């Protein structure tokens, strides 16, 4: 399948400062990709380039095979949904009127709007109120609803879960999974790395405008080769250290015993541990937070 989005050696300069340097990537249909990186890493800039809101200084951008900033881009955007990071609506319109307005612009029937509002948890009472009276989370819900209008083929969500309560975060990721199954490309930027685990096919790490890592969570774990931690309960630390020998380092807080070992030794360590009289055992894979920190350290050292 041809990629939904292609970024080819793109650089973006603001004056003399580079917001993006030589970034290349493809997004495939049905892929859910997370864009992570520190503040100012270039995540929003990348999304705006894909939407054609700004033009690259160098390199090429293709959205569904066409130039998103070109003359015929308006037609292209029928198949696109966008949730900007600084979401703003016209305060004098109600939630329902806002969604109607955007549906009309997109040329889609407004019949589905009530269902869409319900799906993002905006009650009928709230939808009748002016957006100016909304809380941050309610605005974010409305933003999500407008991004979903007209069954887009590509969705750009810039920090979609900021301001959402835990219940709606869960709903949000359910919606993302559904879209993914329907073949929609979803690109979402986030700082909430913990909640991304298990939700995305692929993670792109940005640092100072440069793409420093790109792959599946498992692939990145393999690449980083960070130590795995195994927590054991019920055996004394000395006994655990004895059983592991040089395979891992052992530490304890007097209660739980923690073994750190290389990812490749994980199975061997577990085999030895299970021969001990343990009450409980748990494996802690390096989290996305740790992976992220690792790639940043690596970048700074280079």
């Amino acid at each position, binding site marked *: 399948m041809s990629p939904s989005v292609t970024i080819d050696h793109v650089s973006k300069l603001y004056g003399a400062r580079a917001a993006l340097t030589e970034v290349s990537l493809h997004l495939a249909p049905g892929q859910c990709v997370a864009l992570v990186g520190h503040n100012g890493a270039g995540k929003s800039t990348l999304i705006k380039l894909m939407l054609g*809101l700004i033009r690259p200084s160098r390199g090429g951008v293709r959205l569904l095979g066409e130039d998103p900033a070109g003359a015929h881009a308006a037609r292209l955007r029928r198949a696109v*949904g966008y949730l900007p990071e600084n979401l*703003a609506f016209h305060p*004098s319109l109600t939630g329902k009127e806002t969604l109607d307005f955007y549906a009309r612009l997109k040329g889609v029937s407004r019949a589905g709007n009530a269902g869409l509002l319900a799906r993002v948890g905006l009650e009928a009472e709230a939808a009748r109120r002016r957006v100016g009276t909304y809380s941050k989370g309610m605005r974010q819900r409305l933003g999500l609803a407008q991004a979903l209008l007209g069954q887009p083929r590509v969705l750009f969500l810039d920090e979609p879960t900021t301001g959402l309560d835990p219940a709606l975060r869960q709903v949000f990721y359910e919606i993302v999974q559904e879209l993914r199954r329907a073949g929609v490309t979803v690109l979402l930027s986030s700082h909430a790395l913990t909640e991304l685990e298990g939700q995305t096919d692929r993670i792109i790490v940005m640092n100072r405008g440069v793409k420093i890592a790109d792959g599946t969570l498992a692939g990145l774990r393999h690449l980083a080769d960070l130590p795995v931690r195994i927590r054991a309960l019920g055996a004394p630390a000395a006994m655990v250290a004895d059983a592991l020998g040089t395979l891992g380092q052992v530490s304890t807080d007097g209660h739980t015993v923690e073994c750190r070992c290389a990812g490749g030794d994980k199975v061997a360590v577990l085999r030895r541990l299970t021969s001990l009289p343990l009450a409980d055992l748990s494996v802690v894979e390096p989290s996305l937070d740790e992976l992220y920190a690792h790639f940043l350290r690596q970048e700074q050292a280079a």
Partner: protein
Amino acid sequence: MSGTHTSIPLILAGKEIRDGLRNRWVVAATLLMATLALSLTFLGSVPTGTVGAGALDVVVVSLSSLTIFLVPLIALLLSFDAIVGEVDRGTMSLLLSYPVSRGQVVLGKFLGHLSLLGFATLVGYGAAGAALALTGADTGPEGWRAFAGLIGSSILLGAVFIALGYLVSAVVRDRGAAGGIAIGLWLVFVLVFDMALLGILVADQGKTVTVGLLNWLMLANPADAFRLFNLTGTDQVSQFAGMAGIAGQIHLGPVTLLAVLAGWTVLPLAAAALIFSRRQI
């Protein structure tokens, strides 16, 4: 596709109109124009009701002065924020992620804002005209024609300054600066230009500034084109306005003057659309 395509400016215009009604902008502008128009109509007609010119001709003269001061100001206040403000608040990036071209955004806003201003002018001045008719004053058909011309050209002058406001709004990065420049434009076109022209004419004593040059200079200011259109439109009015002498010298017909005003609308509007389409959001 074309069905929804062509209606996009109308959808955008409808939103602007609804905004104008909701935030009571329309009510305020209409009341202001009606109050000023009514006061001028009745104050202005007291001492001069019988000197040959019809009551409506008198009203046309005084209301065209009101238009020159008020309409450009209202139009600029309505338009200076239209692009830079939406970019600033963040609503523009969302709007432009929809199947909407930037030219359509400018056109849609223009249609919406012009409807608001047109409504305020029509109702505000219309109230003055209706009140005058109710008093049984001397209003001939020619007077009504001049009055209709006044309302139409006032709206056209508003269109000019809405377009100029968008041009400012498309160029400038900062809302405060846009507001300042808009007020500056108003001062230049409404006050400074005419005073400078007068100063030049007095200093020159007719040596280098020929009638032909004066014609061109007047066209360089849409407010003057509007003034000429209304004050020299009919013999009655031009006599009463003391413009008969000038009207004889200035060879610009009403059609030319209206075309000039239309040009002053279309060119800034096109420039605003062009500059906006190059702008990074």
